């Protein structure tokens, strides 16, 4: 009984193609989820129905794309805003010398489709922020292989916000991988159910920042000279002109400025690539770390998509600096997380109620215990208790009707010192 038996074979599915994967999918095991249905149904889902999004086509992304394609995912989408740099070629193995300068997402998609028959990879060369909820809604699963904290915070908040209590399809599992040198982590985020990326923001390794007075007066390291050039000299010489760390001319200027400084203080080791590394905060990427983390992410994607085994709950940490050490634990959701924590309350008020009246209602509400609430919507302030200037600027709103400021079904963010973080009100009118 080899793989032709799955009944959904396409011309690309030659005999034995999925022999090894099918060992897992053809029969349930001691750790399979009760909902697991061995055989054709699960294979059909994985190979013909599941749609997966990969964010990032760099060091982790290349590994993730290859793993997913070889595991049997056939409808893969990939987003990346970068183009290929020659320094990527040592580990981002879907790219060749001839591809330098081309968009990572497009080259990676073409490579995978050529190499793994029957797989469709749809690239998008651009920012994740270009896409709206409708776009993210089409996927079953999302895997992130990003090196940017900001981008991760954005996709995390977007997926948490997308969860709609009325629609099970709106909950998209997010698998997040990250590496820094020999360290890495893989985690499974079930938006609104498990802890989210924002919940763990304080666990991040801090990027090294040197005291500004050391940079200014007592440089000892080549990095101090580079920081001096970028933090102090650039704004002094170029004024308002913004430094673009992707512009080779800017890096060259910083490199030359830092070199002069280094010479003055007898410091060795300022190079062009170190300059680029320091200002872009590049941590050396290690191919093997990327491979391990990507494998872990894809393993989770496979388990979640097929229910063939228990998935990670919820944080896997790899420390390869001294030997190989790993630790898996359940990172707990934070009640005061600004993205997934706090509370949301439905409030039905009269369309005649002034803002002042709403504030009184909140203060009187026994179950939430708010003192001195400040109110805003996503794009404007309604009433802020402080500082005095903003209080005065928003005071005229107190006598306005809430319905003039917030549309039916609209949301108000309430902050107050007595709240752990914030409360959101969904307003309907009577």
């Amino acid at each position, binding site marked *: 009984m080899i793989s032709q038996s799955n009944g959904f074979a396409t011309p690309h599915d030659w005999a034995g193609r999925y022999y090894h994967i099918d060992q897992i999918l053809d029969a349930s095991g001691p750790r399979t989820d009760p909902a697991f249905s061995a055989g054709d149904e699960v294979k059909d889902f994985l190979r013909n129905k599941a749609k997966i999004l990969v964010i990032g086509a760099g060091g982790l992304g290349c590994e993730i794309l290859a793993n997913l394609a070889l595991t049997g995912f056939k409808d893969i989408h990939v987003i990346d805003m970068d183009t290929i740099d020659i320094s990527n070629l040592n580990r981002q193995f879907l790219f060749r010398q001839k591809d330098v300068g081309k968009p990572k997402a497009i080259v990676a998609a073409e490579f995978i489709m050529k190499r793994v028959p029957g797989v469709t990879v749809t690239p998008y060369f651009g920012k994740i922020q270009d896409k709206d909820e409708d776009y993210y809604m089409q996927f079953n699963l999302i895997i992130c292989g990003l090196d940017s904290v900001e981008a991760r915070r954005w996709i995390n908040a977007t997926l948490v916000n997308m969860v709609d209590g009325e629609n099970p399809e709106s*909950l998209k599992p997010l698998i997040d991988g990250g590496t820094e040198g020999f360290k890495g982590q893989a985690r499974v985020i079930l938006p609104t159910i498990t802890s989210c990326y924002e919940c763990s923001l304080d666990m991040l390794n801090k990027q090294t920042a040197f005291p500004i007075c050391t940079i*200014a007066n007592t440089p000892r390291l080549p990095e101090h000279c580079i920081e001096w050039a970028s933090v102090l000299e650039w*704004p002094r010489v170029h004024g308002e002109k913004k430094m673009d760390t992707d512009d080779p001319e800017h890096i060259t200027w910083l490199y030359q400025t830092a070199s002069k400084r280094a010479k003055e203080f007898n410091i060795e080791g300022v190079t062009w690539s170190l300059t680029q590394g320091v200002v872009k905060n590049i941590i050396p990427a290690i191919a093997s770390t990327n491979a391990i983390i990507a494998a872990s992410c894809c393993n989770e994607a496979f388990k979640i998509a097929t229910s063939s085994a228990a998935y990670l709950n919820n944080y896997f940490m790899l420390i390869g600096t001294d030997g190989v050490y790993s630790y898996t634990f359940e990172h707990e959701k934070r009640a005061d997380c600004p993205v997934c924590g706090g509370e949301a309350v439905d409030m039905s008020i009269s369309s005649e109620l002034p803002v002042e009246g709403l504030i009184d209602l909140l203060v009187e509400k026994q179950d939430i215990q708010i003192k001195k609430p400040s109110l805003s919507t996503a794009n404007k302030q309604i009433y802020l208790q*402080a500082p005095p200037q903003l209080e005065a600027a928003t005071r005229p709103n107190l006598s306005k009707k809430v319905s003039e400021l917030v549309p039916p079904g609209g949301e108000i963010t309430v902050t107050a010192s007595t709240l752990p973080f914030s409360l959101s009100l969904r307003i309907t009118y009577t």
Partner: protein
Amino acid sequence: MIKIWSMKKNEDAAAKKKPKTSAAQIRVQKDLTELDLPSTMQTYFPDPADLLNFNLTITPDEGMYKGGAFAFSFAINPNYPHDPPKVKCTQKIYHPNVDLEGNVCLNILREDWKPVLNLNSVMVGLQYLFLEPNADDPLNKDAATEMSKNRDTFLQHVKQSMRGNTIKGISYDSVLVH
């Protein structure tokens, strides 16, 4: 696919849809509306609708900088509070920990910043620099050397600079409160 939804139904109904307001924006609103500043510090928002860019004036009521009003600009980026606020002194002042471009040497603005700190901690830290300038972390080297070697001259320089005088060829901004 695993059936996640059943897990969702089992938990309490607390987690409903959240607003579209960004985490940075909510955090800034929280920080600003809960500022607990002494009368020696005042914020000013050039555009009251923009909470991410504002000024702070510090008017120390004791110490060697008493009588002056010192202006700082705050710029908060969307990655706050992962990234610290960017703070600059907008005047040319004679202070060991502030250079002539307005850069400020305050540990919590750079190497010791943590997301649990807030705008209040930064403001209190800034005010402290005027009460206790620190000659060990110099950004204006002349001022720092003077402070540790010849305190009387340093105090004189501080007074003169605050009136807008020139010290060692550098003219400082007048910062006296009228």
